[in-house]
């Protein structure tokens, strides 16, 4: 018994030692010279491997930046800080003033406000539901509410709010766009981080049609264009859109909106204050 244990110990130790030594020698002989900047750029990237840049992960994006001259500003999660660091490493100058984009659901239709065509009892997945007649809502543009975006979100930034509606926490959002890609109806859209109001509707149906199936759907009445001329509102295809480069007040439009689908997002400063108080 004692000798068996001894043999086992010695043989495994010897084997491990010999193989380890062999690998150490081989790594010297077969060493590949690496560009030091690749490691530095990789260090500057967030390391989430979310794939938002279009490369397989942070390591391959770092390599693409150094070796293939890939654009420096593809990393959403890294934001301005990472961009600046990478630009310093690569000796390039970049515009770091562009704003962080975050995802947001552009729909407020739940059981209380929207009409449903049928009951769905299948698997909890928006894409599975979407196969059946493009979803169980009469509206084919709205949020299906089964939370496929929540499952794919790497930072758990998406949640059901008090009214059971899917909402994105913009402070947790890293702008990886995975939710935008997985959403079958396209109701998840990117907006600037500082956006104060959004048009929470995605329906391009005509007013009479929209009004029949949804109480909070945009009917394209253009009242927002008139009430807040500096707010950047434009109605196209029966749906109001906001041009966020315009900075005029949007409050009047939101108050006058007959469907109440122009909704305020908690302003960035106020949100900070609320959090500080609590």
């Amino acid at each position: 018994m004692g000798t068996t244990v001894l043999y086992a110990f010695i043989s495994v130790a010897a084997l491990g030692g010999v193989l380890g030594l062999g690998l150490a020698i081989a790594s010297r002989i077969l060493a590949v010279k690496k560009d030091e900047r690749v490691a530095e750029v990789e260090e500057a990237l967030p390391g989430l491997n979310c794939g938002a840049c279009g490369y397989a992960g942070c390591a391959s994006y770092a390599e693409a930046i150094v070796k293939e001259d890939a654009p420096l500003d593809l990393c959403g999660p890294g934001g301005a800080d990472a961009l600046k660091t990478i630009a310093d490493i690569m000796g390039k100058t970049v515009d770091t003033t562009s704003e962080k984009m975050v995802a947001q659901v552009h729909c407020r239709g739940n059981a209380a406000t929207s009409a449903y065509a049928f009951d769905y009892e299948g698997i909890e997945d928006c894409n599975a539901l979407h196969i059946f007649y493009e979803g169980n809502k009469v509206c084919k543009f709205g949020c299906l509410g089964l939370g496929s975006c929540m499952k794919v979100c790497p930072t758990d930034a998406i949640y059901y709010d008090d009214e059971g509606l899917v909402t994105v926490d913009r402070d947790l959002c890293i702008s990886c766009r995975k939710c935008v890609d997985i959403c079958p109806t396209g109701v998840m859209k990117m907006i600037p981080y500082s956006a104060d109001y959004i048009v929470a509707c995605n329906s391009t149906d005509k007013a009479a049609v929209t009004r029949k199936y949804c109480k909070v759907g945009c009917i394209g009445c253009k009242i927002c264009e008139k009430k807040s001329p500096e707010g950047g509102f434009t109605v196209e295809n029966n749906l109001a859109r906001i041009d966020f480069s315009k900075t005029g007040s949007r409050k009047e439009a939101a108050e006058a909106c007959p469907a109440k689908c122009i909704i305020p997002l908690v302003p960035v400063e106020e949100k900070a204050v609320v959090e500080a108080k609590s």
Partner: protein
Amino acid sequence: MTYIGIIIMFVFVNNFILSQFLGLCPFIGVSKNVDSAIGMGFAVTFVMSIAALTTWAIYNFILAPLDITFLQTITFILVIATLVQLVEMVIQKTSPPLYKSLGIYLPLITTNCAVLGIALIAVRSEYSALESFVAGIAAGLGFLLAIVLMSTIRERMDREWVPKPLRGTPIAFITGGLMALAFMAFDKALLNNLVG
């Protein structure tokens, strides 16, 4: 058993992927295009044949004489891990494009149960050194066959409409299951008819 019998057995009858379901990770992960599937297939073949030979040597010269054969799993893993590291270094040095297309799956050969599987099966079947080596090559070729077939199917499937929830890995697994059904045609009776 003849060498031809061993080859036919490991390539077709006991195909590691399609009848024993070992090593499915690279089978699904690297079968998106034919080029990298072939590269992966040969890398696995190389690792499997060398692993079968070295583990045979370890088993018969170290473990069996010292009567510590219960250590076979841990020592085999040690040897396989080292081999894969070595193969990785060699590929990185000699063929950077292949290294890049294999990506994360190359280190994953370390934990590929097909490689450990061939080492353990060869020992259990009491093969000689050469038989172990041939079995390793044959099992690797079986893997190569399966992954190349799979990659050609997947390349064609890319152009077809697949229901959204099934796109990517799910449909690949279903395809693999259907291929496994087809491989059930190769059974022991066929082997006995061919090589007696």
